[in-house]
């Protein structure tokens, strides 16, 4: 394997990895605050893809407006999911919330199926994201540059919000002790809504970039990326935002590089992620950056 080929594969791996990472951050933030695996999170990728699609194709909005609209509407739907599905059972056993999350996921997928239909739609990729640069023998897709840049910027913004702002401080406190946070005069539900909105907007950015990379959108398109992002979040240490991003990158690189080295295994691409998850759960259940939490 020559160096050009290896570089090429690493670029592909990083691109996919960033998309997993963006989605994984949302998983990990909601888990950090509520100790809930929001299985509907992957489907938000599909929601944002459709919103952007309809914005561009039906309403002929310019793409920046359609993408911004996708982020805002997906963020809003994230809040609705929490208020409608999770808030009423906040005090119930955690398993109820987990089952509810799976139910919400099925609801979103099948609503899309009923309302929009199951036939895959081609996503209109704006000119700005098409084409690629050639550096020597390495092809650098413009979209990859965008994905890397947008993911880096979003990760910085999220880390700044969590570590430097008042609401971020409340989120960190909430992850350990919801009751005492409420004794500080803080409306816990508002902090949770904010967390859902932020995580969902990241999923939306991941969603529109995902469908520029794989431009066929259909109601179940969020399932596999959602599961892989969950693996990435576990790999990085669930509850840890930087860990989620790193977990995403490792997962993306592993998938692409293993298939590059062993082309026969390309059919097992999705299995790689789950093998990694099984391995992590057996050897280091807290993930790379996770810490043990009091239950």
């Amino acid at each position, binding site marked *: 394997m020559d160096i050009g080929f290896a570089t090429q594969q690493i670029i592909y791996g990083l691109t996919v990895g960033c998309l997993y990472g963006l989605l994984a951050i949302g998983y990990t933030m909601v888990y950090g605050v509520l100790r809930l695996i929001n299985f509907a999170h992957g489907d938000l990728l599909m929601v944002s893809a459709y919103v952007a699609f309809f914005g561009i194709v039906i309403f002929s909005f310019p793409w920046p407006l359609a993408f911004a609209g996708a982020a805002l509407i997906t963020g809003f739907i994230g809040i609705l999911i929490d208020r409608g599905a999770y808030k009423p059972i906040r005090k119930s056993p955690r398993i109820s919330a987990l089952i509810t999350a799976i139910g919400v996921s099925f609801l979103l997928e099948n609503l899309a199926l009923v309302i929009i239909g199951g036939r895959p739609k081609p996503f209109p990729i704006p000119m700005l994201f098409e084409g690629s640069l050639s550096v020597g023998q390495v092809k650098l897709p413009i979209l990859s540059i965008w994905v890397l840049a947008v993911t880096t910027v979003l990760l910085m913004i999220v880390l700044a919000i969590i570590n430097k702002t008042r609401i971020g401080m409340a989120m960190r406190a909430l992850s350990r002790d919801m009751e*005492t*946070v409420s*004794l*500080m*005069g803080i409306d816990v539900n508002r902090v949770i809504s904010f967390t859902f909105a932020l995580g969902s907007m990241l999923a939306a950015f991941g969603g529109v970039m995902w469908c520029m990379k794989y431009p066929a959108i259909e109601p179940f398109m969020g399932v596999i990326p959602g599961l892989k992002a969950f693996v990435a979040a576990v790999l990085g240490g669930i509850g840890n935002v930087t860990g989620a991003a790193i977990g995403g990158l490792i997962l993306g690189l592993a998938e692409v590089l293993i298939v590059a080295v062993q082309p026969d295994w390309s059919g097992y691409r999705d299995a790689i992620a789950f093998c990694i998850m099984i391995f992590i759960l057996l050897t280091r259940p807290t993930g790379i950056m996770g810490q043990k939490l009091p239950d």
Partner: protein
Amino acid sequence: MLQVEDLHVSYGGIKALKGISIEVGPGEIVSLLGSNGAGKSTTVRAISGLVPIGSGEISFNGIRLKGMSPHKIQRLGLAHVPEGRKVFANLTVNENLLMGAYNNHDKSDILKLLFRFFSIFPALNDKRQQLAGTLSGGEQQMLAIGRAMMSKPKMLVMDEPSLGLAPLVVSDVFNVIKQIRTEGVTVLLIEQNANAALKISDYAFLLENGRLSLEGKGLELLNDPRVKSAYLGDTNYKAVFDN
């Protein structure tokens, strides 16, 4: 200032409080005494909105608290120092204090409050950027009290502030409570350490099995044998206490 009338609370069929009526006047230190499971914590948790009230009324400065959520009750000026300190272990000392002043948007006022806290507890000044979970038990208790005071409350409810602390630190905690009162803040204190609590209390209520069994001025109750027997559930208290 705080009126609790005929308060009933149950946890899934088990009656924890069977009609409690207490009153706390402005500027007072009032103690709620009793043994484990007598209902002291439940009473203050009901006051702060952490457990739902079965029947009865609670009012703070004339405002009914029944059905109000904890964050709204805190915003009325009723701060709660929870049992077991409950500092935010993964936040720094400074951030813990800022959490107490979360709804205060006046930056210079917050700085003044921080300055006041660190002048009273200079030992914590050097640990401002340290995670609160790394502090000693006594330091965490001071931080928990300071955090509650950051909201400039009219009244402070303290649940077992001396629990699990070394005797020397316990006297520090009681000194701080006295100091808080001199700043015009009313205190409702839950204590297992009845003697220490009664010495600084204007008034005290004794709880037994979810009911009030005794009330009176702090110093009058100090030598009342019924207080001791309530803790021991034993009429031979004298043998235990007096030798």
